[in-house]
């Protein structure tokens, strides 16, 4: 899988579920339930992925080469019966690009609010 800028841009914007899964994997390899818990904790319970959404997204992320299934997970207390997922360098690039895109968007929005007249 190449990670040229064009390939990265072609995947943006990421669906929210996919972005959260990538974010959850930045800290290290994780299994499905772990991802759900991580996302839930980070969003303060606002986003709770269902197993269907999780694995459907995982399947697509695997196909797109954003994540992979490592032979042996890096975590110390890895449960051998579980399947773990790891962010690929390409996935990391895409997640970073999505972050930049969202930051830019927010920056633009803030600017609009600042110059807007009081009445609005």
């Amino acid at each position, binding site marked *: 899988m190449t990670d040229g800028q064009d390939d990265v841009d072609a995947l943006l914007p990421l669906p929210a579920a996919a972005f959260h899964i990538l974010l959850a994997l930045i800290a290290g390899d994780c299994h499905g339930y772990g991802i759900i818990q991580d996302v839930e904790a980070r969003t303060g319970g606002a986003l709770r992925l269902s197993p269907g959404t999780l694995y459907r997204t*995982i399947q697509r992320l695997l196909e797109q080469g954003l994540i992979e299934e490592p032979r042996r997970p890096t975590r110390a207390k890895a449960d051998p019966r579980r399947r773990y997922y790891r962010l690929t360098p390409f996935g990391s690039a895409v997640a970073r690009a999505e972050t930049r895109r969202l930051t830019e968007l927010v920056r633009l929005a803030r600017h609009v609010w600042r110059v807007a007249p009081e009445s609005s």
Partner: protein
Amino acid sequence: MIPLYRALLRLYPASFRLEYGDEMTEVFAQACADASLPGRIGLVLRAFGDETFNAAAVHWAILIQDLRYTARTLNRARGFALTAILVTALGVGANTAAFSVADFVLLRPLPFPDPDSLAMLCEGPRTGGGGTWGCMNELSPANYRDLKTMSASFQAMGAYWGGAINLVGGGEPRRLGITSVTPEVLPLLGVAPVLGRVFGPADDDRNSIVISYGLWQSQFGGDPDVLGRKVNLDGAAYTIIGVMPATFYFPERTSQIWNELTLKPQDFEDRTNTYIHAVARLGPGVAFEHARAELESLAARMSRDYPETNAETGVSFFRMRDNMSPRFRVMLIALGGATLCLLLLTCANLANLLLARATARERELAVRAALGAGKERLVRQLITESVILTVLGGVTGVALAAVSVPLFSSLVPPTLPLATQPSLDLRVLALAVAFTALTGLGFGLLPSLRAGRRTEFDALRDTTRAGGGRKQRVRAILVTVEVAMSVILLITSGLLIRSVWHVQAIDPGFVPQHVLTLTTALPRPKYDDAVRRNQFYERVVAEVRGLPGVQSAAFTTGLPMVITGLITGVEVPGQEVRPRRSAGASHRWVTPDYFKTMGIPLRRGRDVENSDTAQRQWVAVVSASFAERYWPGQDPIGKTFRHLDHTRTVVGVVGDVKVRGLERTSEPQMYLPALQAPEGLPGGFDPKDLVIRHSGQGDALVSAVRQIVHAVDKEQPISNVRTMEEVLATDTATRRAQLQVLGVLAAVAVLLSGVGIYGLLAYTVSQRSLEIGVRLALGAEPARVGRMIVADGLRLALFGIVPGVFCAYAAARGMTALLFGIAPGDPATFAAAVGLALLMALAGSFLPARRAVRVSPMSVLRAE
């Protein structure tokens, strides 16, 4: 709760479930374990919505993937894809079109409420046997009245008779079909008018008319205030009181106006004057056969009561649905059979194509299976591919059907109250879709099942050595079926071709070339006076004859093959009176030069002349068969006979004409001078068809003739402008239409089975190229190898031809009604069809044989 979730996972495609099912269950179980009891219930409820949505999303993603893959592979195998689509389109298209027509004519109820209780009655033979269809004669008003009053089986019965009338005013004068109906007729049909009312028993509707929707639109521009408008029909004023709906046709589609039929006391005097039809609706709960039995007993009673007129008269009684010549029914069934043959053939062809492709792709599929593609995914992908192919084929097929249905319109009998053109309706479309889906799934599944089975590495190990075997046999059987079907179609259409040839070879009795004809029906009472009529004829004929290129012109009551009736009885002094019904003669009033114009040979005596006026001796020119019937072996000139209460002297003998059409026996004919018409004869007997013999182009004449007619009488409409050749062609039109349809089907069949043979042999040759290479290397003669392949092709063909010939004979026996002058087992036709089939097999095996001969032993062996 967990089993429930597992069941929910069944919504996902198997491949996804295998991959992630366990994980998902685990995650769900853990979430449940972490949650409180109400939380768990919430989790389950949420799972229902989530998993349904996600499963659909996964299915959709796979479909998109498969579609993309299919588009790529089909683009690579464009020849295969196009052939498959075309073959499917032909099968679906021909069947949809044929079914539309057959359904329209044979199956769909007539457009009247409770159409099964509608029946028609007319005169049939006394001996009963009034089969399913056919009138011997119309009814006389007296017989109609007696049947109506004495029968108890009907809730209503009405009478009608049809004709044509001149509509004057509002643009060019037009000649339109009119039907006079008794007040019972329109209400008993059960169709309400869209505007106004129909005739009622209490109203005085002698000068009222009801018009068709078509006429309302074309002549009156759909004017909503048309009711009460006055129109001029044959010189008399009529008021429009109603408009019938667009789908209403009665008794035939040519009828555009209905007026009231009032029978006067004197109409009931003559029981042999038969001119009205009767239509009836069975009473509630009365069986059709019961009504028929009642009518037959009534007819028996009437022939006892009126032996001098009704001795030979019975009743013919049939459902309105069956009011068509049996030939149309046979033809539609034959058409259905033919398209079914074609469907079988196309299915076999398609199956063969898909099988060949599956075999060719065995390696590809095996590689994909080895790389981890699940069996379910492979099967699913193959099904997607064949469904795509058949959907494309089906859509093309429906388009093909829509285009070809008009070609079939000549197969709709003109005697049914239906529109000319069946439309492709939703049901027919649904049927086509079902066909398409079945073909696609059936033949998509067949190869994919095998592909699914071959998950081991057999296919990878397979080399070109492994040809033959069971699938080859399946393909050979499919090709045999194709050949058999095409032989059936070839033979049956061959028999029809020969029938048309036989019919067209019949001498009509006149020379149709260079004869133009048109109709100018003189309206009564304006032309009640015979002298006035004759002034019209003389002026028109004289001026037309003066036109450049015109050799002669004349008027007649009715063209042969157009007016087939006008049968009357004749009494010859000193001879027993023959019954009019079985031994009548057809008669026409003509102006001089009719025979010369039509090219009817004058055998003896003279033509009708302008000096044959009512004041002179009344004369007649008779046909040869007329003379032979009444005066066998004698000179008929100077002999006399009585006709419509006048004694006439024979002054000339002419050749016989096929008045009733080429295929039917015609009554002997007599021709009477236009000026010698009995007083009070209805206008229908007036000469009205102008025939013109010319030496140039008929088209150029038409406008000149129009001007002449308008100069003589500017209110006189002209209709039915055509050549005598067209009249003759119309007589064989149905046959030729049938032939075209079957001929096209047969040609397609031959082509497809040729392609089938070619495909199979080409495949065999490529599979056996190693064997052939070795043979050649060991010194086999190339010619012998070629002969071997051709022999294979011929053997395949023979296996199909033998059953095909038997089936064709059975089919031909079933369609004897369509054959003319030819036996269903005509050896020449069979031989020609078999020859054609063999030729097609030879052509199909030629290319593969040539390829086999050119196999290079070195390159084949090197490739191993």
